[in-house]
């Protein structure tokens, strides 16, 4: 059988290459593809891989054949002014172009929709941030005004520093304000019970607070001190002398 086959293979015509235009080559090695080792084992079921291998084989053939053709002075590029009948009619090409365009448009539309959605989300976030910032500023302003009203800070800087940069704020009353900070009572409570804002049981006794006798004042406890309950205590010290004493003082002076 082999002999017969070879016999017939010789029976085939021996023509010049330019007549036959055939190239036998493996596919071009793709630098992007996984490895050169498994290019032989192209899985026929994997459509993409298979088609890519065909494509690369065609590419290899073209890369080899075109220089040869150029040497033999066979034209390969069609000049722009050469009009001839094509294998597919213009109508067909139009249809193809339309289809491609519609696909591209659909993709673009979906992309735009996605972007719009993302932007809307971002916009909403930014919006909420701005609103919060405004509310904060309003709160600060009101606090500053209240403080001024209560007499805690006697500077009206906060009104002016509204427009200027935050630097002015920092330099001016803000630092003073923050130095005084919260109330003494508040500070005491903060120190005693730590950060975290108002806690529910902050006024309850704990073991430490119960055992803490640092706030013990003996005079107050034994009621021996000068006493708080005194009407106009200061004035009492420099009590005005009586009529008689005053007259005596007057006569003595003259």
């Amino acid at each position, binding site marked *: *059988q*082999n002999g*017969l*086959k*070879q016999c*017939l*293979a010789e*029976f*085939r*015509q021996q*023509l010049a290459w*330019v*007549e*036959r*235009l*055939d*190239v*036998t*080559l*493996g596919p*071009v090695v793709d630098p992007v593809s996984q490895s050169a080792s498994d290019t032989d084992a*192209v899985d*026929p079921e994997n459509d993409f891989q*298979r088609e890519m*291998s*065909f*494509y690369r*084989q*065609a*590419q*290899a*053939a*073209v*890369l080899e*054949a*075109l220089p040869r*053709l150029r040497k033999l002075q*066979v*034209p*390969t*590029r*069609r000049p722009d002014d050469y009009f*001839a*009948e*094509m*294998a*597919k009619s213009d109508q*067909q*090409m139009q*249809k*193809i172009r339309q*289809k*491609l365009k519609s696909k591209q448009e659909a993709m673009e539309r979906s992309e735009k929709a996605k972007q719009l959605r993302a932007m809307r989300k971002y916009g909403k976030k930014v919006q909420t941030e701005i609103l919060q910032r405004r509310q904060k500023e309003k709160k600060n302003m009101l606090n500053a005004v209240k403080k001024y009203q209560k007499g805690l800070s006697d500077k009206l800087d906060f009104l002016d520093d509204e427009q200027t940069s935050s630097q002015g704020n920092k330099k001016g009353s803000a630092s003073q304000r923050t130095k005084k900070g919260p109330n003494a009572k508040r500070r005491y409570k903060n120190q005693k019970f730590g950060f975290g804002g108002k806690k529910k049981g902050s006024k309850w006794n704990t073991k430490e607070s119960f055992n803490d006798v640092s706030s013990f004042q003996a005079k107050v406890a034994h009621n021996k001190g000068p006493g708080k309950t005194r009407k106009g205590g200061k004035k009492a010290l420099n009590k005005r002398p009586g009529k008689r004493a005053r007259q005596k003082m007057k006569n003595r002076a003259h």
Partner: protein
Amino acid sequence: SQGKWKNKKRVLIFSSRGINFRTRHLMQDLRTLMPHSKADTKMDRKDQLFVINEVCEIKNCNKCIFFEAKKKQDLYMWLSNTPQGPSAKFLVQNVHTLAELKMTGNCLRGSRPLLSFDPIFDKEPHYALLKELFIQIFGTPQYHPKSQPFVDHVFTFTVTDERIWFRNYQIIEEDASLVEIGPRFVLNLIKIFQGSFGGPTLYENPHYQSPNMHRRLIRLSVAAKFREKHHVKEVQKMKKKGSKVLVKEDPTEVVFETPAEEKPVEIQLVKPESKPIVKDKKKLRKIQRKKQKKLFKTEA
């Protein structure tokens, strides 16, 4: 087309009756792509295959591509060199035509193709023969009057999975960027004959399975599955019924059996007194009983 057309070869492309639209389009596509081809009317299936040789001679063609459709499902393609040469029969699958919108390339009508082959074609003798056949049939001769002088598309023949895959690409740039134009099909070699449409068989493809066989196997496998299930069900039924185990008679069982005492047979000659009918006042009349039943039902 300056120059003398020396390599005078013509290819006759035609088909038998009973082909479907896809095959017809494929045939037309091949005719447009190959300017050295000639068309002919459909051949009647009654005639034998060697009649084709005569048809070719009448048309003055020395090669032939003949499409044969069987059962309106399977498509076979014959490639042959008509006077004496070898011929090959293939089963054609996965046909896509020029008109498909995914094939975006285009080429000059009648331009000469570049033929690209897989290196496997050089390794086996039967593949080498097929390669020669393809070159002679698909290659357009130089200076053919209907051909264009430019080379702008490429036919690729690749051997994968024991089949020959055909693709047609358009060459866009000199750096080998390609776009697919044309029809694509897959050829499954059946046999190679020494003569044209006949003669001794030179090669038979061991991997070839006729489509009938293929369909039969599928049907058999489905039937086998069904039969398996049925068999399993039967076995289960048998198990359930179980074989009746015969237990030997136990003599000690009968020991305590005492037959009943025989009663004297009394024949009543006088009708017994009828019972006095006592009306149950608590029992409601029929209509009211029915009503109660209905209510009970609706409540429930």
